[in-house]
């Protein structure tokens, strides 16, 4: 199927291979193929496969290097910081994914119903904060959440917040991180969802309107089911990334005067085990927990949705 020369069935099945152009081409092609991918393959092994294998090895051994079975997983799982860390992230994910689903899809549907030129301006504005992803976005939001300087100080005072410490109380963090993630990340997803909506054939929408469906009915009953695949894609990717939360609790914790636990998220806990306790085996065990979550998400996306058909 990949052979580049036209099939020459009439060519004699050569006395020697070197006389058979098809076979010769194929062999040369094979060697060339390896040459083209070899550099990337080395990187994949060194920085994709090996670290994972090494982390798994550490996770199943003791500090002395003996095989200890699941002991590291059990001990880290029983640690008093383990469950809260996963609960924090779970709470955050619930809010973040909920808002992604309702607001991103809602905004994309609205953008799709107005004129294309106006919507492209909106899309660009929504996408712009993506430039401040990571540490910069957290810093910006520390200002936004500080009632003494925030442009939304009246709004914050409605909740009775008088200083930053009151806004970023530990109980508020899941929703705060969801807001930050939404601010920096929603725009990209709005663009993707809008693109998916644009691929819906016009006839389908016109047919629905002829049948008497209003704008909202068309949106919910015709457009939404047709972009289901992309919405699933967005939710799984956001879930996978959300479980890895690190920079947000790290930076907000820095500004909280010690109110926020340094092991707020699972990745922070793994970091803590590695750098404060010097227990790389515990750190590796939690890393493997998180790796498995990431792998499961990837598996669902690859095998259950048909988004990545490679051939």
């Amino acid at each position: 199927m990949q052979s580049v020369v036209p099939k020459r069935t009439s060519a004699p099945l050569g006395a020697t291979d070197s006389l058979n152009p098809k076979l010769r081409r194929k062999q040369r092609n094979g060697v060339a193929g390896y040459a083209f991918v070899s550099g990337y393959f080395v990187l994949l092994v060194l920085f994709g496969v090996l670290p994972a294998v090494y982390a798994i090895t550490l996770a199943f051994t003791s500090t002395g290097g003996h095989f200890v079975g699941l002991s590291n997983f059990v001990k880290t799982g029983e640690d008093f910081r383990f469950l809260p860390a996963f609960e924090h992230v779970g709470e955050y994910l619930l809010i973040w994914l909920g808002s992604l689903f309702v607001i991103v899809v809602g905004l994309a549907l609205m953008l799709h119903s107005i004129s294309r030129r106006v919507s492209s301006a909106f899309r660009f504005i929504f996408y712009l904060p993506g430039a401040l992803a990571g540490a910069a976005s957290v810093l910006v939001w520390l200002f936004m959440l500080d009632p003494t300087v925030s442009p939304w100080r009246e709004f914050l005072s409605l909740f009775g917040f008088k200083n930053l410490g009151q806004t970023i109380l530990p109980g508020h963090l899941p929703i705060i991180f969801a807001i930050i993630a939404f601010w920096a990340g929603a725009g990209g997803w709005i663009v993707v969802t809008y693109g998916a909506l644009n691929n819906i054939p016009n006839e389908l929408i016109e047919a629905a309107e002829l049948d008497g469906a209003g704008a909202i009915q068309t949106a919910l009953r015709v457009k939404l089911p047709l972009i289901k695949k992309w919405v699933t894609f967005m939710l799984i990717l956001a879930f996978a990334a959300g479980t890895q939360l690190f920079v947000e609790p790290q930076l907000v914790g820095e500004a909280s005067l010690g109110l926020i636990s340094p092991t707020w998220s699972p990745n922070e806990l793994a970091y803590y085990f590695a750098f404060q306790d010097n227990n790389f085996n515990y750190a590796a065990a939690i890393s493997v927990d998180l790796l498995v979550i990431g792998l499961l998400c990837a598996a669902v996306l690859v095998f259950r949705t048909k988004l990545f058909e490679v051939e």
Partner: protein
Amino acid sequence: MRLFNRIWSRTFAYVVLLGFTAFFVVPVIWLLLSPTKTDHELVVGNPFAIGTLHNLSHAIHVMFTFEDYALLNWLKNSAIYSFGGILIALAFSIPAGYGLAHTQFIGRRTLLGVTLFVMIMPATALVLPLFLEANAVHAVGTPWSVILPFSFFPFGVYLAYIFYSSSVPKDLLAAARIDGCNEWNVFRRVALPLARPIIALVTFFAFVANWNNFFLPFVMLPNSTNYPLPVGLQDLLAATPAFNPGQGGQVPIYRPELAIATIVAMAPVLIVFLFAQRSLVSGMLAGASKE
């Protein structure tokens, strides 16, 4: 009635869209305005008032000269790590995408599948394992401990693969072979020059990812002279009396100065966003529209 409904729902859409515009834009405007004001003015004044050039240059001066031009040093580090990673990523992912799309070899489908998996998995999940690995070979603290993991960019391979398999026809490559090109020259003289849009696309995504990456350099680089900007920002945040009153003003970094540092950190990505808009769109279309 139908018409009324339509007008009503459209008005509703505009109101909601404008509301969200405010949510997305207000923080950016506030950030850009704040270095023109003093810390005191930020507290007592109108949040959207424009300050003075004098305040701006003062804040810039304080922030840039802070700790012997630490900010410039972080900026330089960020540039080295990001572009070092991008260069190696490009050098390996473009040929790999081409090889996966247009050559046959044993293990090709497996390699494609593995690439897909690592691409979808959040990169953060590998940071601590990478640290453990780097620690085992005593590479922690070196620039390479950040640049090399950056250079592994499976998404770039996937983009190049999609581009080559969808927009570069096999006939074109076959023609070059008939003209006497060997496999390497087919790639170098035919496939590589066609890859310009995909190079731009991979550079864009890798740049945004590398520039904003916090966790990897944070664990790999213990020494503040090696920090890239995002990690430097955390350092500033920890030291500033603006967020940690306990620091007692030993560090002259207040909110206007922090805002400068944040602007410096985001400016390169913002500029790339603004300028890449058109070519990015055409690049994506080049991959999608041609047969």
